[in-house]
């Protein structure tokens, strides 16, 4: 059976996925998403396609049965454009890296690491204990509020709780609070949770109910020295309102890994926002890389490969997100 890796990103994942597939398969790679003539030939006999992007106007893929995403995010898939009879599955393995990132950002913020390390490299002992310098803050004892108790949120909670944080969470649906979480709020009652938190971590994907969730009004409900961490999706926070809140000190700071705009071929170094977040001293900013670890690639590759094997063996598929 043929497994077609479609597009530049999927092609970069062949090294992590292909060796983990146990069944005998033929690996095809098609990188140039714009060459529709040659793509038509590649798609015509593909039953399994690995890609994170499926748009309207793709050549027919009449034999396609499994569309396996090499990522968790499904926002690149136009479901209406899929041929009928296709099962779409995503892959996990990113949650550990993202949880490490979230806790790292909390630690770096409370211990003022960037600031202290920069000053000391320049020769200043102003932050030293031996000079009786200004004290920094510990994570222990702080209240961490996690918005979105999916896999990322739960892994973050476990680690923050081990550091002695008081961890609360908000989720669309709530049952028993997951490990490490002392209280879970329904998402509709987020306003009750926000004022309690020293750190708020956004671990939700983009959906109608999460777009603009953290707006000007909700930012004003947060503690004035609170840290906002976003590893979910940029537009979960209102771009202009967040910039203003950080500039004006409505909240203490932010660690942002996800953005409102992304680079493209014309603008490879495109700024991540129309607002100058990079000029703010209370922002830590990274280019959507929190999940981007070697461990993630290994786990996610194994996850996608396991599903391809299940499909070939006729077993139940994991992580089904859509069926056309």
């Amino acid at each position, binding site marked *: 059976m043929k497994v077609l890796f479609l597009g530049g*990103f999927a092609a970069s994942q062949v090294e992590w996925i292909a060796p983990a597939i146990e069944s005998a398969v033929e690996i095809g790679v098609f990188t140039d998403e714009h060459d529709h003539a040659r793509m038509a030939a590649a798609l015509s006999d593909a039953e399994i396609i690995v890609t994170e992007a499926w748009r309207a106007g793709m050549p027919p893929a009449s034999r396609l049965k499994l569309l396996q995403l090499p990522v968790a995010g499904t926002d690149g898939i136009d479901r209406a454009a899929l041929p009928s009879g296709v099962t779409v599955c995503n892959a996990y393995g990113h949650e*550990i*890296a993202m949880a*490490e*990132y979230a*806790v*790292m950002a909390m*630690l*770096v913020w*409370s*211990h003022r*690491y*960037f600031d*202290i*390390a920069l*000053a*000391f*490299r*320049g*020769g*200043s*002992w102003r*932050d*030293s*204990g*031996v*000079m*009786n*310098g200004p*004290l*920094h*803050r*510990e*994570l*222990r*004892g702080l209240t961490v509020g996690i918005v979105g108790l999916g896999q990322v949120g739960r892994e973050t909670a476990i*680690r923050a709780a*081990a*550091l*002695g944080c008081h961890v609360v969470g908000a989720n669309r649906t709530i049952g028993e609070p997951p490990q490490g979480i002392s209280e879970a709020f329904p998402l509709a009652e987020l306003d009750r949770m926000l004022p309690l938190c020293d750190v708020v971590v956004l671990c939700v994907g983009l959906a109608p109910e999460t777009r603009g969730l953290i707006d000007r009004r909700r930012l004003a409900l947060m503690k004035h020295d609170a840290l906002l961490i976003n590893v979910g999706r940029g537009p979960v926070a209102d771009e202009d309102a967040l910039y203003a809140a950080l500039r004006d000190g409505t909240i203490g700071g932010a660690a942002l890994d996800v953005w409102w705009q*992304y*680079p493209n071929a014309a603008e*490879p*170094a*495109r*700024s*991540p926002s129309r607002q100058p977040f*990079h000029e703010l001293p209370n922002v*830590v*900013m*990274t*280019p*959507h*890389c929190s*999940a*981007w*670890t*070697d*461990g*993630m690639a290994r786990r996610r590759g194994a996850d996608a490969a396991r599903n391809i094997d299940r499909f070939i063996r006729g077993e139940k598929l994991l992580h089904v997100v859509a069926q056309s």
Partner: protein
Amino acid sequence: MRALFLGNVAADTANGVRAELPPELEIEIVADPKELTPKAAAATDILVTNIWRTDYPPALRIALVQSVATGIEWIEQAALPRGIPICNAYGHETAIAEYVLMVMLAWSHRFREIESDFRLRSSWAPSWVKSGAPHGEIRGSTLGIVGLGRVGREVARRAAAFGCHILAANRSPRETGDGVERIYPLATLDEMLPLCDTVAICTAFGPETERLFDARRLARMKPTAFLVNIARGAIIDEDALYATLRDGTIGGAAIDVWWQYPDPAEPERRGSRHPFHELPNIIMTPHCSGWTAGMVRRRWDEIAENLRHFVKGEPLINVVTTT
């Protein structure tokens, strides 16, 4: 009874603990040791400080030295009466354990470089959107803790929640637990070092640990290994570590404790005679890993408790040595 709080850290301590001390204890605060008068020194029963030197005025009545820090190497015992207890203070272990986890995470996630390239140059290179080279994570990595005391235990507890494999080396036998899988006697440290992705030095400074990490031991570590020192600078051979980092014999280091410190004559004195600050593979901080508000509060509580014990003639806590 008179207590002398000497030095700027002790001066802050005096203000922090004053309300919890017995009213009969008289308090004298001298923030700058240069201003210590012979009269004040001679009238002192309890010395609360982090520094005492042979060239200070005689203080023959001192019956207790309460250090405001954990390490007491800046208190010159030869300048004190014989047979008196020196007590130290803890409360720093939470802060230091958080620091160790922070530098482990920041190192493997390449947090500072990625952040600064993105802020200054809008570089998306490390991102998934550019299919950039992935960075590391600490899950599944092996952490070796040298010195399984209060700090080492707290480090182990936290690292375990992150899915690290944890080994430890200690002078005296210790129980496993807190996530520690195996404990090596300090004499067999050489067997542990090649297994570790991170080595965290959390041991006290003493004759057995001075230059414990020399060129030979550093060479036993993995070429990708990360060395963290939050204990005392002199546990690592200064020249050997500089050469090791410069030559890439190990991956990198996070150094919070140094071989030399600033003094009034040289307030910006570098922490080493080598230019560590020119190396890209070192995280360097100015002896501040334990320097948190939480540490101060816990430490003040311990110091106040000990002074109350002494005034009432009750057994002392945290006795390190007797002069």
